[in-house]
């Protein structure tokens, strides 16, 4: 394992870096460290931001100065192997593939030499690790997409992509959580709202969880969209270990 580095990010944050690559092993150490930190009750921690290879720790120097914080964080690293990590949750995300909702699906199929149905099967097979959130509220950086459906971004980005759109950009896949401009190849749309300000937990996905897409038809899309509008939809989820057994 790489040596853990403490990198100052101004006078109220430190980036604790666990490696220099995108890997599941590094990401799970970050998850363990984040859990250990939040459970430690160290005073003065304002918030933490997990990313691919580091955890950014925002703190209040009025409560804890950097030298004291670094010592405590290093103390946590020693016991990282003993941290009990709860099994990862898998969010089950229904997707209406193709049509108006996924206008680029035929292109993705054509350039990969596959049929549309094959692309849907390949895209909806894996459980994708949510490495981190960023870019816009609720946007997930997912790992684990099959290279055979990798497709370059659009040459000219679209001005407005509707919330819920599912896209592919290079070897990445993801969901647009809010209406935004963007250059991803759109293959479908989910009626599940990644961001809903009135919800107790406004953002649905969390770093460290997994996402599994499954195809639905228009009738089911409409049904779920109606439930989302009424605030009664509960996203299906299962524990990763349970499913493996």
């Amino acid at each position: 394992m790489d040596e853990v580095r403490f990198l100052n990010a101004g006078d109220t944050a430190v980036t604790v870096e666990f490696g220099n690559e995108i890997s599941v092993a590094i990401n799970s150490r970050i998850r363990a460290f984040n859990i250990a930190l939040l459970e430690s009750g160290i005073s003065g921690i304002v918030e933490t931001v997990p990313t691919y290879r580091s955890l950014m720790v925002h703190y209040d120097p009025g409560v804890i100065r950097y030298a004291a914080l670094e010592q405590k964080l290093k103390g946590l690293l020693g016991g990282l192997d003993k941290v009990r990590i709860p099994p990862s949750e898998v969010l089950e995300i229904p997707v209406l593939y193709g049509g108006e909702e996924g206008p680029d699906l035929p292109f993705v199929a054509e350039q990969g030499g596959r049929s549309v149905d094959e692309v849907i099967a390949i895209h909806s097979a894996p459980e994708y690790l949510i490495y981190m959130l960023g870019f816009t509220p609720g946007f997930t950086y997912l790992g684990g997409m099959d290279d055979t459906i990798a497709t370059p971004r659009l040459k000219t980005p679209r001005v407005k992509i509707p919330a819920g759109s599912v896209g592919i950009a290079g070897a990445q896949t993801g969901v647009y959580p809010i209406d935004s401009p963007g250059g991803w190849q759109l293959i479908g749309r989910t009626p599940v709202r990644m961001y809903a300000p009135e919800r107790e937990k406004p953002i649905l996905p969390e770093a460290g969880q997994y996402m599994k897409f499954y195809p639905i038809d228009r009738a089911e899309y409409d049904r779920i969209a109606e439930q989302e509008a009424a605030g009664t939809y509960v996203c299906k989820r299962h524990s990763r270990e349970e499913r493996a057994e």
Partner: protein
Amino acid sequence: MSITVLHPGMLTTVQDQGRTGYQQFGVPVSGAVDPRSAAVANILAGNEEGEAILECTIMGPQLRFDQPAVIAVTGADLGPTLDGVPMDNYRAVQVGAGQVLRFTGPKSGCRAFIAVAGGLDIPQVMGSRSTYMKAGIGGFHGRKLEKEDVLGLRAPEKGPKSLATRAIAPEFRARTEYTLRVVPGPQDDAFTSAGMETFLTGVYSVTAEFDRMGCRLEGPEIAHESSGDIISDGIAFGAIQVPSSGQPIVMLSDRQTTGGYTKIANVISADFRILGQLKSGDKVRFEKISLSAAQEALLAQRASLRLLRHVLDN
């Protein structure tokens, strides 16, 4: 209890001290770009430091007060007037029903902050009243103010004490060249020593590309060891990103929570009050200081706010 927007100005938004706790979900912190001036405006108006204020950029708005209110304007001098009569910055002022606050034009700085005693009647979203326009989160319907908007006010429990003496000397002064103190990192090792030297000795100009998200600078090119790209990590307020172009971008309130450019250094919190006032054409230099000195400066600044409140309220 309300304010009617007669003209929104160039960019007027509701902000407070920011939305913390949601960066892990990709939600930017937002908040006042010059948090110090926002806090001072609130203290002068008798509010808590973190109360929501109006942040006005370069060309201020025209606002009609539909009932009497106590207000304070801080930060940039955008030329505030009350019914056409010049009004002091950094002073609590009693406004009568029907009076109109107008700004005649910028004299110094970039952003002014208007606090109203009692605060703005704006719902909190994820624990904050700050506006994040790009995603339509918080503030007044998630957007900048527009003509004919009516903002509710919360009635103050009691008016601020000793109104006549609630004033301080304006804290922001325009200069021909500004110095921003910085702490190196998190990717200072991605630059050559000559590149770091360039950064710490060069004079940089603020380009026309500056908004609440970031402030693009132009000046001597800062050399990387190899490239300006990294695997994305977290971005703090005041982070100085240097992409492969070698030209720095200072990240402000509406910055994305994560990003993939090398960050050579971070402006210290105590200097956000200067950073938040920079506008196109301004010249800046960077001065390296130690992390502990930066934290001392922040704590001293906070102590000065407590002292100000104590002096005004007693």
